[in-house]
């Protein structure tokens, strides 16, 4: 695991949602390395090599971050702000995962520099398809600027 490069970082406090997301990504044959972090604090520690991730090589950056907004301690908006305001991390693509398209936070996220959002569909198939499409798109088609 350690030798492999983490390509998708999933930040989600809900275990069920996380499991279904990972299952959906795997089911669509996205073979990239996925790391699931359970809250915002872990996400920031990982990205900036602090806390429990102290010593991690900062240069190893994920290709995409799937970020849930409603999380205890440090929420998704705060994580997004930290990512997009740091030169080290601001090139990383961030996709917001939200429960509803009516969510007023979506606007805020775009303003902060989020690259996309998907509503977590309750329908498994839909959810599976959305996440799978996303994974393919971001990991295979989209070339981030160097």
């Amino acid at each position, binding site marked *: 695991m350690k030798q492999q490069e983490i390509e998708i970082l999933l930040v989600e406090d809900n275990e069920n*949602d996380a499991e279904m997301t990972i299952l959906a990504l795997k089911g669509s044959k996205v073979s990239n390395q996925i790391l699931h972090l359970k809250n915002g604090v872990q996400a920031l520690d990982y990205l900036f090599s602090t806390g429990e991730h102290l010593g991690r090589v900062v240069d190893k950056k994920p290709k995409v971050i799937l970020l849930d907004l409603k999380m205890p301690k440090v929420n998704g908006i705060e994580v997004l702000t930290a990512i997009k305001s740091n030169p080290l991390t601001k090139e990383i693509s961030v996709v917001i995962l939200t*429960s509803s398209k009516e969510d007023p936070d979506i606007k805020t996220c775009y303003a902060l520099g989020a690259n996309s959002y998907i509503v977590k569909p309750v329908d498994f198939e839909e959810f599976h398809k959305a996440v799978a499409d996303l994974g393919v798109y971001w990991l295979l088609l989209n070339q981030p600027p160097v």
Partner: protein
Amino acid sequence: MKKQIDEVIQKEQQVIPNFTDALQETVILLVTDGNGIIKYANDLFCEISNYTRDELIGTSYPIFDHNAHSKRFFSTVWETISKGKTWKGELKNQSKNGKTYWVDTTAVPFLNDSGKPYQYIFICTDITDRKTLVERYDLVASIVNYSDDAILSKSLDGTITSWNHGAEKMFGYTSAEMIGENITKLIPRTLIQEESNIIGKIERGEVVDHYETERLRKDGKTVQVSLTISPIKTSDGTIIGASKILRDFTEHRALKDAIRVNDQLNAQRELREQQIEELLIANDQLISQNKEKEDQLAGLALANKKLVSLSSEEEDRIEALTLSNKKLQLQNGEKEKQLGQLLIANAELSSQSADQEKRVEELLLANKELLFKNDETEKHATKLSATLEGVTFLATLAENIQDAVMSSDNNSRITHWNPTAERMLEWKSEEVLGKNISELLKVVYPNITRDEILQAFTEKGFWQGEVIYHTKSGRPVNVLATASKLKDDKAALVGNLVLARDITARKKAEDDIIQANKRFSSIFNFSPVAIAITSLPEGKFIHVNDTFCRLTNYKRESLIGKKSVDVNIIGQEARDKLINRLLNNGGYGNDIEETLVKPNGEKIEILCTAEKIEIDNQSGLAFALIDITERKKAEAAIERLNQELEQRVKEQTEKVLITLNEKNTILESIGEAFFAVDQNWVVTYWNRVAEQDLDLKKNDILGKGLWQVFVDSEDSISYRNHHVVMQTKQPMHFEDYYPKLNRWYEVSSYPTNNGLSIFFKDISARKKAEAALKELNATLEEKIMKRTAELQIANQELESFSYSVSHDLRAPLRAINGYSKMLLKDYDLTLDDNGKRLLNVVSSNAKRMGQLIDDLLSFSRLGQKEVQKDLVDMEQVASDVAEEAKGAWPNTEIIIKGLHAAWGDRALLKQVFHNYICNGAKYSSQGVKPVVVITSKEDQGEVVYSVADNGTGFDMNYKNKLFQIFQRLHSQEEFEGTGVGLAIVARIIHKHGGRVWAEGELNKGATFYFSLPKPKK
């Protein structure tokens, strides 16, 4: 001395007895002792002093009037003669009857052995005439000199020979500057021709009378003068020059000014009439045009003010006129006074001339008498020689006498030639004694022939008259000669005696005086002022001048010697009144206005100065007068015009006042307070309401300065705005607060022709209400703000609540649904059919729960969402929705019938159509041929849209529940739904200001309506 006397005695021995006689006839003699007691006085002294010889002998009658000479003079005389020296000089004295006389006196003292005078002889000649003439001349000269009229004389070549004080004043040149200069210096270049015309007239002996022209002053300005020029003639009638009287033209100009002022007044009157007419027209307009009443009323007030000020202007002008008249009168008075004095002087001169003539006559008479009394005189002389120390006395007398004494024998050989004769005729006694007198002395007789003299001399033995002697050097000497016969003791004719007195000086003086008289009589005659002298008390004319004659149209000869009342130039009553007034005023009167009557009965108004004078030993009155008929007429005309004008002004003012009163009644009765000010802020109107509203009585402010009364308002809005209106002439409306009364006013300030008309209303009550309302509003707003804030907080809380609810509720649902699906997928082979069905039920319920939450969220979001309005093509929106619906309900026919455009939020309106159309399709889907029809129509300012279907319909009893949230009329099994759709429609339409309703019948379809306000173009 003794030797001299002896010589004289020897020389005069023969002539002495008769010499005395000759002396008696021409010389005044007085002899006193050393103490001045009179010892002898001759007949001539008695005559001149008016005392008898008896009255004089033994008294110390003074030889001169001490009051007429200074004390110093007196002491000089006595000092001289008491030292034994002869004194010569002119003495003034008074006769017994108070008459003044002058004598040329030689006082000779006689000394005793101790050198003290024991006797004085005064040898005198009467020079009163000359002296008086000279005095008169001086007086007249000074009068001329100080006359305000410029009086000057010039020779025929134009050289100025005299220049009086008046001329100095008029022209600015002093007499020193002008005497010897040419008269042309005074004549403007353009008028230089005038002088030769004038000289031509003068040379022909004509008088230039009241010629109006211009002359140049020293300062270069011109002066308007009235010129009177008369020739100056010598005694033989030769014209040697001219005298000029120049009068400043101001007087005439003043009259012209008066007429001009009158014309101006006329013009003003016309102007005013015109103004009044305009005013009346304005008034009429005022009555008809209520709208403009404020401005016009103010204009009226202004015009009225103007009228008043015009009246006062006019008064000023009249006052100025009166003043100028007064001034004129005063000037005239002064001039007349001077001329009066001149007149008196002239009159006295004439009387003096008369006196002189009279005296000559008397002298002749006295001489005649003397002739008759010859014998008596002889006796007297004998007595005298006995009484006096004859020889000595007579010798002294002969030597000291002022007259030349010459005697000749029967062969005309000169026998005596005294020192005076030596001095007078330049021949020494020794040169002439024994020579023929008629060969030696050349005599000219100016007024008489030699034969006539000889005849008189032969007949009377005596002749006296003026002759001209030519002296040794040929110089002519004017003398008064007295020739008489010399007889010896036996009365035998032994020769002739001539006493000759030098009268050259007197002659010259007389000539001068005659010249002066002529000059002044020409001044008298040609004076622009009419002069008349009448006697007192009878009022006979003594003198009148040409101007008087011209003025009254009487000929001089028809006036002189006649009583004024008899001539009827003045009425008896008027004259009595005038005389009384003059006599009660010390014989002087000024500014007397009188009416005189011309011969044809025409009346003339005159202004005169009168003074009581003594003339020819009788009382008289000298009048100097000018014609003021024209002025009077002008004055009367002005007065009449003024009265007319005043009457007119009064009438018009009354008319205006009546109109004004009507207006005033309006102004007084209108509910608004009103006042007016002129451009100087003087309050000209103040109505009753203004009195109440500003708590200030009309009488306390009318005519006063507005800002003087409202001193406390100088920094107010009113002060600033009224000033702006006054400046810009644009009306203003504003509100102002007056702290003193704690009142608010609504003010309208209108400019008028002459200030402002100001209407105002006490709006304190309204202001109070407004203030209360404002306060209320403020608190209300505060409350609303507080409430809004509370609401916002509540909303925010609600929102975050609903957000968390929807977010948190969806996560378990997602898990239920997801995991059921995973179970079904992963355990497909182990689950039986019923197990699969149960899992599907779990999944679908979870899905429905998710739908409910979504609808609820969107419903609650609508409450907060802002409506973004625009013009919306409803036809297009409805078609889009219909397309979508067709996908879900392919069997349903959807018909859209040309929809009106709407003003609203496109997305929200699409939601409305979506809900209505989908509902229609859903509830009609079970029918045979489902149809949904969409229409719109305009109705009373709104557009009503309807969506009708032919589905299941509904019971109208439940129509109120249709639009409530979560209310459903059908079961989930019959028709799917959450019960939120119509609630969302209602909310959207209400937000657009429209209404929603529905009509339906069970199983017969339903029609759902919504209305929107008609879009604004």
